[in-house]
């Protein structure tokens, strides 16, 4: 039985986005605090877990870092099915990657879990000189589509922990107002027992 002061939550989180946007780098920074200039290309998907404490709850993220190449798209549903959260990543120096991100948002909105917490990450924010996607543009898009937006840099660590922390806070069962009833199934992803919607 979970008490209000001590909640353990497992949350499946998926990272989606164009090839080379920096999905794996964000995860590596978040999970291990490391950055490498050339991150091995991900095939299928890679799995990581990391725990965060937030609002009296402990959130254990089970992170699926997916492959970006277009043809791997056909595998994606397996990874976002039942996910409590998603980070859609684009590269601020690459307009095409932003367009790709929008497509992911669209797909998740129609196919994903309706309570999913979605974050839009404009990665490589350290490369300001080469910026192709204006922060305002991404911000407006995110607002219109019920996501929250952050510019991140896996290289400098800017906003990396913050984006995961923000997601954790927004998970339905982490919100203080939420009043979970009955037994909390520890071995089930959060969204299965969550009933209230998380985002507007």
């Amino acid at each position, binding site marked *: 039985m979970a008490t209000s002061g001590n909640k353990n939550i497992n949350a499946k989180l998926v990272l989606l986005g164009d090839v080379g946007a920096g999905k794996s780098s964000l995860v590596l920074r978040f999970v291990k605090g490391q950055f490498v200039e050339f991150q091995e290309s991900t*095939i299928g998907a890679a799995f990581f877990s990391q725990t965060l404490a937030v609002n009296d709850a402990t959130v254990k993220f089970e992170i699926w870092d997916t492959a970006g190449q277009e043809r791997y798209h056909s595998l994606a549903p397996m990874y976002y099915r039942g996910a409590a959260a998603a980070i859609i990543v684009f590269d601020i120096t690459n307009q095409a990657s932003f367009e790709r991100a929008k497509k992911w948002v669209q797909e998740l909105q129609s196919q994903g879990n309706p309570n999913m917490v979605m974050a839009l990450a404009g990665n490589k924010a350290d490369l300001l000189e080469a910026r192709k996607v204006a922060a305002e543009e991404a911000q407006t898009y995110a607002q219109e589509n019920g996501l929250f937006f952050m510019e991140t840099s896996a290289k400098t660590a800017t906003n990396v922990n913050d984006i995961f922390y923000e997601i954790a806070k927004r998970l339905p069962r982490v919100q203080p107002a939420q009043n979970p009833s009955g037994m909390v199934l520890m071995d089930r992803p959060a969204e299965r027992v969550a009933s209230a919607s998380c985002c507007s």
Partner: protein
Amino acid sequence: MYGTQSKRDLALEFQSQIPILRPSIHSRRANLTVKFQDLYMFTVEGNVDDVNVLNEVREKVRKQGRVWWALEANKGANWYLEPSISEGIALKSSLKFSTLANAITLKRLIRKGIPPLLRPKVWFSLSGAAKKKSTVPESYYDDLLKAVEGKVTPATRQIDHDLPRTFPGHPWLDTPEGHAALRRVLVGYSFRDSDVGYCQGLNYVAALLLLVMKTEEDAFWMLAVLLENVLVNDCYTTNLSGCHVEQRVFKDLLAKKCPSRIATHLEALDFDVSLVATEWFLCLFSKSLPSETTLRVWDVLFYEGAKVLFHVALAIFKMKEDELLLTHHVGDVINILQKTTHHLFDPDELLTVAFDKIGSMTTNTISKQRKIQEPAVMAELDQRLRRLNSLKLEDK
């Protein structure tokens, strides 16, 4: 002929031995993580046990080498190049032994491993790469490279992006020379088969082929024979449909070949085997298993065909059966499997299970299974495509 050993020109024999750690350290070994180079110069992390296992593997590789040299001395240098029985093509081999006896010896021998120095030659002929190459003009590869020089396609852009991301840190692959060779092989192939073009995953496969084969051109032909003859069709094409089919076949086999409680347990956890096995099948284990173990799998793959991938994948689950049954989370399952594959430094440990404990599977049965799964996969992919397309229309 032991004397031929002196001709070995690769670094393998001369690489410095990993220092054997003193027994006194063994008590603390659980906490000790060391970095070391394996047989193919990959830097790996492991504990003292792993280091010792790898030293034993080196010794076994040497022993296995002696077996092959002795056979060469008895049967003649190219005895294994005898055509297989089914092919019935007379090669120009001057020696005629009992083909059947040789085939049986060879199958056993290959499952025990081809010595690294003989790999280029044995793979090239037994996989069918030599035959494939012989059907085109001698200058095919050079002509191909000349023809594609300077051309930019989505495939070449993707390849360029992946070159430094393919086994970064490897002392040869991650050099300008290594990148250039890998680029030529991948770009060349992307033009040879535009349906495949370039699929991520092939970078790892081609890189490892380059490390094994003597020449870049031979690596190219190995990649060609792999994609065109050894593996099932459409593994790497636009929607990876062949790979989807393999995953479904694998799921069925897991229920049949491993105790059914494993499959039941994993299903209850909502664990789909393709969560881990997609990478195994697309990279042919090169991203999961240590290099020599991967290449031992490939030894058999090139001789016995794609069913070998199922044997090996099933073996990994079987080896960890007890631990897997104790898991409560998908994450735990994946962690166990990842840890297991990364530490399989002893190829025999894996291959013994793969071939002695899984039970036989004929290529024929697996082909039938594929035929059964294909329509469902195609329907699913098609349905998905339509759903996504209708999404786009709504958006307009």
